[in-house]
């Protein structure tokens, strides 16, 4: 033991490596590996501490809260699966789950289609194309608090700009935020409006790496525009499309401000997603147990989904 320390110190004096490693002198590679392992440990440590504090600990505590009848101040008594039973038998939960599903489907594919269309259009030669590309990113860059305020001004009351426009065109006065169906559609359109630039950037980046001579060759061979699109473009952007769908699904399921700031989850809970429901259950109804149970159910579902998707992504990147 003392000899190890001595040789370590000796090496440290020579300035080759810090003391303490048990590697035999002269084996530069393994010394470096040992040093690298130690350094990696210290480099990773702050990240691990934060992950445990901000993600790990709350997750475990959430599991505790979901099985207790406490509130925001104390943990309360253990009630087993009662909160989960309450949540799973409540119609509000299933309604919110259904809305979350639709919101996610429309959010992901709506923004993908708009983003794809614009990315394809912007790939062609257009005067001022670069400027348009930057301008079209604005909905994504502008804070939701700001854009939801603007959307409110545009659609909230019967006298707002867009309802007035409809009225003047003789199409009645649609109540965009007061009618349950229309409000759901409005929130989804708002989500697409916020998210399409992200899709556009992802697809543009993927398209940029496609060699355009492929298309010339294809049109020489008599491929129609549609065939070129389905046979060349789509397969080439398939990977990044897949990744963007995954990310957008996560963004949509976890979304809070887009919905909450535009409609507050109303009218009559028509636009209440699971996150909004969890938030209101905890912070407005002060039912911490059931609220955390909702969040916990979402969390478990997302853990399973994201582990599967992560494996899929890794598998496809090996190919």
């Amino acid at each position, binding site marked *: 033991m003392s000899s190890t320390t001595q040789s370590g110190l000796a090496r440290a004096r020579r300035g080759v490596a810090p003391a303490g490693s048990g590697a035999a002198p002269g084996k530069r590679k393994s010394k*470096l590996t040992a040093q690298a392992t130690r*350094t*990696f440990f210290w*480099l*990773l440590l702050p*990240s691990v501490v*934060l*992950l445990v504090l*901000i*993600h790990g600990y*709350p*997750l475990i*505590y*959430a599991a505790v*809260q979901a099985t207790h009848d406490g509130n*925001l*101040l104390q943990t309360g008594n253990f009630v087993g699966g009662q909160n989960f039973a309450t949540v799973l038998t409540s119609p509000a939960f299933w309604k919110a789950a259904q809305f979350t599903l639709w919101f996610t489907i429309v959010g992901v594919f709506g923004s993908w289609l708009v983003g794809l269309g*614009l990315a394809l*259009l912007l790939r*062609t030669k*257009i*005067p001022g194309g670069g400027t348009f590309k930057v*301008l*079209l990113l*604005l*909905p994504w*860059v*502008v*804070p*939701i*608090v*700001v854009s939801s*305020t603007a*959307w409110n*001004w*545009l659609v909230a009351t019967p006298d707002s700009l867009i309802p007035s426009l409809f009225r003047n065109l003789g199409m009645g006065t649609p109540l965009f935020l007061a009618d349950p169906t229309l409000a759901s559609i409005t929130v989804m359109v708002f989500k697409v409006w916020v998210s399409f630039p992200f899709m556009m*950037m*992802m697809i*543009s*980046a993927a398209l940029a790496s496609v060699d355009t001579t492929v298309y010339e060759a294809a049109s020489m061979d008599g491929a129609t525009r549609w065939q070129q699109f389905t046979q060349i473009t789509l397969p080439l952007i398939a990977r*990044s499309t897949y*990744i963007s769908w*995954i*990310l957008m699904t*996560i963004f949509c399921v*976890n979304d*809070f*401000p887009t919905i909450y*700031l535009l409609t507050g989850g109303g009218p009559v809970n028509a636009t209440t997603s699971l*996150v909004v429901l*969890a938030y209101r259950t905890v912070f407005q109804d002060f039912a*911490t147990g059931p609220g955390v149970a909702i*969040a916990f159910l979402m*969390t478990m579902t*997302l*853990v399973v*989904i*994201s582990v599967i998707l*992560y494996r899929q992504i890794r598998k496809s*990147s090996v190919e």
Partner: protein
Amino acid sequence: MSAVLHAHPESGPSLGVDAGKRRRALSEAGQRGRWWRFAAILIITGIVLVPIMVTVLLAFTPGANSTATGLTLENLNNVFSKTLAATWLKNSLVTTLSTVVVSVAVAAPAGYVLSRGRSKAVSGYSLLLFVMQSLPIITSVVPLFILFAGMGLVDNLLGLTIIYVGSTMTVATWMMAAYFDSIPTSLEEASWIDGCSVFGSFTRVVLRNSLPGVLSTAIFAFLLAWNDYLVAIVFLRSNEIFTLPMGVQSFFQQNATDWTSVMALAVVMMLPPVIVFATLNKYFSVGGIGGSLAGR
């Protein structure tokens, strides 16, 4: 034309001539198409930006009780003199900038390990980061609220910053890792031979060559922290601790009819991210976020 399109390569020398004609015809059509596409994108961009244009326009339009005509800075003046806008702006800037600095400082070393480490533990950690970032923040918010309440970190900008760092760190770490992947290891190996430690070569060789990656990550953290609403609404209680999202929202709820002032405050809030994006946009690629997922 269509005969040419369907012609086989073996149809002989005529192909070359026809192809030449065809290219000329195509380029004329291309010129016309260019302007059609320009018109299309102009109209689309115009429609898409209506909410933003409305915000800016209203912010500089004289309010209901105003005597000013044309465009005016009155609303901005009012907002800053009659509300805590200056405090909210300061709070937002302090929180966001601290988040950016700490987030990069945590994510860069961790990203380096993810990029260079090849052990099971490292790839396990990478999976863990992916899972954690996909979880709804609402799950951790309630337990953190209770934890932070005991430590006096509720209604406190430091508490807010800690959560922002935690929630930006996951994606930031991948973004850094993806950038480090693009830096050849031969650079570090050379510095090791020169007697540089692993840590030294990370800071002096790798990090020094990673400015675009650092900036991209910083912009990401900036946007996330600046735009957050959910954490702010849970953790902030008092008016003078509000960040801009809370300030704008509370002002909007109290003065829903005073649109010009609301929009003036909205412009104050949207300006910093727009400026950051306008100046640094060449460093930022969402493709980078996706790529960091794909490449790992």
